[in-house]
C-alpha cells in the first residue's frame, strides 16, 4: 500500500520534481514572511489604534469592565475638552510655523554646508567634519545651561548692549531656533549635513567640470546643476527635520517654556491643563481630581492630536520618505 502510494506520487511528480520542491519552498517562505510582516505591522499600529478607540470612550465606558476596545457610548467630548484645554489651534499654528521655519533653515544651511564638505578641498576640512560628528555625539544637556543663558541675554561681543543699552531677550520666541538652524547647530543637524555630504560625494565630478568649462561660476554651478539633482536628498532632510522639530520637547521646553505655545510643551503639561479647565468649567473651588484612568485617556487623546497632522503628511509623502533615502546614497 505504502509502496504503491509512493509510486503514484513519484509518477505524479516525475518531471516536475525539482520545480515542485522549489515552488513549495517558496510558498512556505512567503507564508512565513507574510505572518512576520503582518505581525510586526500589527505591533506598530496596535497602540495607536487602541489610543484612538479609547479616545472616543465616555467616562463610564472607561470604568466598565465589559468594554475593552469598542466604546458603548462613543463620544467626541474628549477631543473637545483636550482641544480647548491645550489651546490646540494656537499651539498648532505656532508649531506649524516653528517647524516650517526651522526645517527650511536647516535645509538651506545643511545643503550649503554639506556641499562645501563634499566638493571643496581646504585646510582643516577633516577636522571640521569630525566636529560635525562630535556635535551629534555630545548630549545637548552638556551645553543646555550656557545656551539658555546665551539666549536669555543675547549679545555678540557687546554690540547690542552698545547700541540698545541692553542685550536682546530672545527666549520664548522663534529666534533661538532660527539662529541655531541657520548655522547648522539645530536639532540633529549633524545628521543632515552628513546625509547631504554623502549625496554630493556620490555625484559624478564631470558634471561640475563641464559647467566650469562652459564658464559657469561656482555658485551658478551649485544652484543650477547640483541643487536640482539633489532634490531627493533635500526632501528627505526636510521631512525628517520637520517631523522631529514637531515632536521635539528638549529645545522647545528649554527655549519656549512660558513663551510661545507649541504642541510638544502643551502635551507635556496636558493633564494639569485639563484639570484646571474642568475646574473652571464646573466652577468648583478645589481643583478637579482626575482618576489615573481618565487622566491617561486625556493624555493619549492629546498625543493623538499632536501626531495626527504628521500622520497626514506621512500618508501623502511616505513615498518620498522611504524611496528617496534609498537614492540619497546615505550609504556610499
Amino acid at each position, binding site marked *: 500500500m505504502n509502496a504503491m502510494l509512493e509510486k503514484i506520487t513519484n509518477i505524479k511528480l516525475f518531471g516536475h520534481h525539482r520545480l515542485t520542491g522549489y515552488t513549495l519552498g517558496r510558498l512556505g517562505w512567503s507564508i512565513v514572511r507574510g505572518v512576520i510582516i503582518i505581525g510586526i505591522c500589527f505591533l506598530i499600529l496596535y497602540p495607536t489604534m487602541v489610543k484612538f478607540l479609547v479616545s472616543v470612550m465616555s467616562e463610564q465606558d472607561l470604568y466598565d469592565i465589559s468594554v475593552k476596545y469598542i466604546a458603548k457610548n462613543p463620544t467626541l467630548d474628549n477631543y473637545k475638552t483636550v482641544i480647548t484645554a491645550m489651546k490646540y489651534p494656537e499651539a498648532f499654528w505656532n508649531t506649524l510655523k516653528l517647524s516650517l521655519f526651522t526645517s527650511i533653515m536647516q535645509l538651506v544651511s545643511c545643503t550649503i554646508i554639506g556641499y562645501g564638505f563634499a566638493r571643496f578641498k581646504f585646510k582643516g576640512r577633516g577636522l571640521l567634519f569630525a566636529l560635525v560628528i562630535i556635535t551629534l555625539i555630545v548630549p545637548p544637556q552638556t*551645553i543646555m545651561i550656557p545656551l539658555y543663558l546665551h539666549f536669555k541675554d543675547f549679545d555678540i561681543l557687546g554690540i547690542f548692549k552698545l547700541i540698545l543699552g541692553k542685550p536682546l531677550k530672545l527666549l520664548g520666541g522663534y529666534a533661538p531656533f532660527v539662529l541655531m538652524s541657520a*548655522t547648522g547647530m539645530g536639532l540633529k543637524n549633524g545628521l543632515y549635513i552628513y546625509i547631504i555630504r554623502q549625496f554630493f560625494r556620490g555625484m559624478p565630478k564631470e558634471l561640475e567640470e563641464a559647467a566650469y568649462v562652459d564658464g559657469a561660476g561656482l555658485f551658478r554651478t551649485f544652484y543650477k546643476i547640483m541643487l536640482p539633482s539633489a532634490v531627493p536628498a533635500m526632501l528627505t532632510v526636510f521631512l525628517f527635520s520637520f517631523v522631529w522639530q514637531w515632536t521635539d520637547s528638549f529645545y522647545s521646553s528649554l527655549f519656549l517654556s512660558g513663551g510661545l505655545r507649541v504642541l510638544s510643551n502643551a502635551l507635556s503639561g496636558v493633564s494639569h491643563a485639563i484639570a484646571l479647565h474642568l475646574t473652571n468649567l464646573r466652577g468648583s473651588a478645589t481643583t478637579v481630581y482626575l482618576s489615573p484612568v481618565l487622566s491617561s485617556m486625556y493624555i493619549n487623546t492629546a498625543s493623538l492630536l499632536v501626531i495626527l497632522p504628521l500622520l497626514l503628511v506621512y500618508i501623502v509623502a511616505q513615498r518620498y520618505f522611504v524611496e528617496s533615502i534609498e537614492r540619497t546614497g*546615505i550609504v556610499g
Partner: protein
Amino acid sequence: MAAKRKKRRMGLEEKKAMMGYVFVLPFIIGLLTFFLFPMIQSFIFSLNVIEVVEGGYTLRPNGINYYKTALLQYVSTANEGKSFMTLIGEGLAAMATQVLLVVIFSFFAANLLNQKFRGRSVARAIFFLPVILMSGVIIAVDSGDLLQSSMGLTQTDAQEGSFQAVALARVLLSTRLDTRFVDFIVSAVNRIYEIVSASGVQILVFLAGLQSISPSLFEASNIEGATGWENFWKITFPMVSPLILVNTVYTVIDTLTNSNSVVMTIIRDEAFRNAKYGLSSAMAWIYFVAIMLVVAIITGIISRLVFYQE
C-alpha cells in the same frame, strides 16, 4: 613666464579652497557660538558655584568638588537612592542589549522589506511609521502611561501585560539553557515593541545599503551555483557590514542621548529644578566622556570586523 603660470594655477586652487570656507562658513559660526563656546562655558560652570543674581550670575571657584560629588557622593532620591555612577552603569548595560537587538532586528527587517512581495510599499510605510509615532515628546508621554503599560508595551516593574512572554520563559528555562541567555531572549521578546519602534532609521539605512549592491554580483554567483544562503553570507553580509558600524554608532548615541533617559532626566532636574547649575554641568561632562569612550571602543572593535571594498 613659468612663475606667472604657476601663480595663476595657485590662484584657482586657492579660490576653490576659499569657496570651501565660504560654503562651510555658517557651520563654523554655529560651531563657535552655539557649540564650542557653550562647551567651554559649561566646563567653567562645572568648576564653579553659580549664583543667579539680578541681571546675570556670579561664579565662585569650587575646584573639582562637583566632580567629586557626582562621582562619589551623589544619590538620586528619585531612583531608589542609587548613585550617579550606578545609574550610568545601568544605562550603559541597558543600552548594550538595546543596541544588539535593534541592529539585529533592523538588519532582518531590511532584508525582508528588500524582497519582492505584494503590498511591499504598504509594509515599508508602516515599518517606518515609528519614526513619527515614537519621537520626542510622544515617547516621553507614552513611557509610564497607564494605557500603554496596560497593553504591556512599555516596561513597568509591577505589571505583566498581555505581550509579556511568561510562558516562553518557562519553556526556555526547562531546556536548561544558560539563564543569562534565557533572560536575553525573554527580554528581547518582552521589548519587541520598544525595539521595533527604535529601528525605523536603521532599517532605512540597511535597506539603502542592500539596494546599492550591484545585481551583477548575484548573477555571477548564481551562475557559479551558489545557494541563497551562500549568497547571503558571502555577498550581502560583507557588502552591508560597514553599515553595521554606522547603525551601531547611531543606535548607541540615540539611546544614550535620549532626553527621556534616567541620567538625562537627573542632569536636567539638577539644573532647572534644584538650580544646581555647577553640579549639573559636571554630571553632563562625566556623561559626555562616558559616551565618547563607549563610542570609541565600539568603533574600534567593529571597524576591525568590517569589510571595506577599497
